[in-house]
């Protein structure tokens, strides 16, 4: 099992005809993902390496039964693309694009909650989601992820950062630990999917035995996750928080990674997580080592 996506997920790529969309869409297909369609209103009826292109997500869903969409549309078009996907009938929207204005994100987050409550948005500004061995939607390099091993304790990953997500996958692979699903929720101020959404899904997934959570400075998502873990989670969680030494008031690459008004520090996040029983690694490698211990005790 896995969360959110598996080998049955059929994906339409919005922006498949663009250079990024084509590159990652075909890579994802090579990985085994069911890449069933692309969209481009000007190129309907054509194909990208055999993948049919439709004018809209609605047409693609009708023709192919797509259940998820992956957005590689440039930032100015993301708001419309998200709504087109929801109105088109997919249940999962993975928005890879970075640089989307925060007001657009706040608007479509609330619009989806209100009008499409059963649609799960992941991102924007995220690396995507991979259920190793089953499906890969987004820009993660599939081969650095180890597929879950039947009969052994497998782990779920949720992360706010792209390269640290890869680092986490890699650390677990080096330690021969399989991954059920790895979700990159992205580093923007209003992520469609939160840590809690993922922790809840991992808690419910019988094949996931422990969770690696990679956070970073800014906002209070980690503190909220800590409260959820303390109240609702039976599975062990290992965490690493990036930006321990980040200076206040500076955006550390991600729009959401900023310590402001004394809030959002890594220390406060570590403290909250520790109080919830989470084991904290001081760097990604240490988090990997801690996970080896956790899995060994299961």
């Amino acid at each position: 099992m896995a969360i959110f996506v598996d080998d049955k997920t059929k994906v339409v790529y919005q922006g498949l005809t663009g250079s990024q969309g084509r590159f990652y869409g075909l890579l994802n297909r090579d990985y085994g993902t069911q890449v069933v369609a692309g969209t481009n209103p000007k190129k309907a009826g054509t194909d990208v390496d055999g993948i049919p292109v439709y004018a809209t997500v609605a047409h693609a869903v009708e023709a192919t039964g797509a259940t998820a969409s992956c957005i590689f549309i440039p930032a100015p078009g993301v708001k419309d693309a998200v709504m087109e996907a929801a109105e088109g009938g997919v249940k999962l929207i993975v928005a890879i694009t970075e640089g989307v204005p925060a007001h657009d994100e706040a608007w479509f987050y609330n619009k989806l909650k209100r009008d499409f409550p059963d649609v799960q948005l992941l991102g924007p500004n995220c690396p995507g989601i991979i259920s190793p061995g089953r499906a890969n939607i987004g820009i993660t390099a599939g081969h650095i992820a180890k597929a879950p091993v039947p009969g052994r304790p497998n782990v779920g990953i949720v992360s706010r950062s792209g390269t640290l997500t890869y680092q986490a996958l890699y650390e677990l692979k080096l330690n021969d630990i399989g991954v059920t699903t790895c979700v990159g929720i992205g580093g923007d101020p209003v992520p469609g999917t939160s840590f809690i959404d993922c922790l809840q899904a991992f808690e419910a997934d019988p094949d996931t035995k422990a969770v690696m959570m990679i956070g970073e400075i800014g906002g209070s998502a980690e503190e909220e996750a800590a409260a959820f873990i303390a109240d609702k989670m039976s599975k062990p969680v290992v965490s690493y928080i990036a930006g321990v030494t980040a200076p206040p008031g500076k955006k550390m690459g991600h729009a959401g990674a900023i310590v402001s008004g004394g809030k959002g520090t890594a220390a406060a996040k570590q403290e909250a997580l520790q109080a919830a029983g989470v084991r904290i690694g001081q760097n990604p490698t240490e988090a990997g080592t801690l996970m080896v211990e956790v899995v060994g005790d299961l």
Partner: protein
Amino acid sequence: MDLFEYQGKQFFASYGIPMSPGEAASTVDAAVAAAERIGYPVVVKAQVQVGGRGKAGGIKLANDAAEVRTHAGNILGMDIKGHTVEIVWIELASDIAEEYYASFTLDRSAKKHLGLLSAQGGVEIEAVAETDPDAIAKIWIDPVDGLTEDAARAWVAAAKLNPAATAGTVDILRKLYTAYTEGDADLTEINPLILKPTGEVHALDAKVTLDGNSEFRHPDYAQYDATQVRDEREQAAHEKGLQYVGLDGYVGVIANGAGLAMSTVDIVNQVGGQPANFLDIGGGANADVMAGALEVITNDHNVRSIFINIFGGITKGDEVANGIITAMGRVEITVPIVIRLDGTNADEGRALLEPHLSNMLQLRPTMVEAAEAVVAAAGAGN
């Protein structure tokens, strides 16, 4: 992007928010000319993006041209907490009956917009929040609905302002919300929002932070980008399109991805070193990007060693290694470099680097070992 007060006021004015007439000036003569047009008395206000300018002598009342000349002369060029005053704002002085506070920001936790309104203005809102939290009336606004007139009225009533200020405040708050949303601001703040003895309400200050991601629909924001306060290193990196934050240490840091770059800064600290910067080169890591990054880092004379930390995902390790080797041929580097290269095709990448290795170019298998080596190399180079 943080705006100066004069830019924030011009931004507010474009949304119809009432304010006293004012003009920006960068010379004493221009300040006097502005005051003559506006009429007396005027306030001469230092334009710096740091608090406490009043206490530092950066805000003065002037009753005639001679006083404007004196104050503008003193304030222009003044250093306020490390910020040099290059522009003064000349504004018609206002009579103040009461001072309030109003702002809009995004509440990341609630994922809604948050409005704050308080009858206790003119002081730092953080201080009010600590000493008298009930004095701040809060409203959470669903971006899909916006701020309705009814909601604004109820919010103003909850803040218990002088009833004489109600109508004017409701009007300003709705305009301020429009400026916040249509203007793609991260923050719009008026502190103080004043009630005049004559009963009008207007903005006496303007604090605005704009979302740089929205520039595609606000081409005029390029003017604000041009006046951002950056140190020299940050400006050079910005011009190369690199994500760079200057720090105070001596170990230059280059990494791909914001999270890994933050993590690299952390780990340099953890092993006893002091990072000189945060630098995210993004996914590419080709020779051009790497050369640009090395140029920015080596221009910082505090840098005594450089840590290049790359995790290959889609970007392959051999391509990264070639990028580094080519870049090193193009940029003169006098300090030792330590590389950690992992992920996709890392073995091929390391093999390519092998013939170039020396004391000046070292390779380490893990982040921790590389951090230790780069900190040691910084010491040895001293």
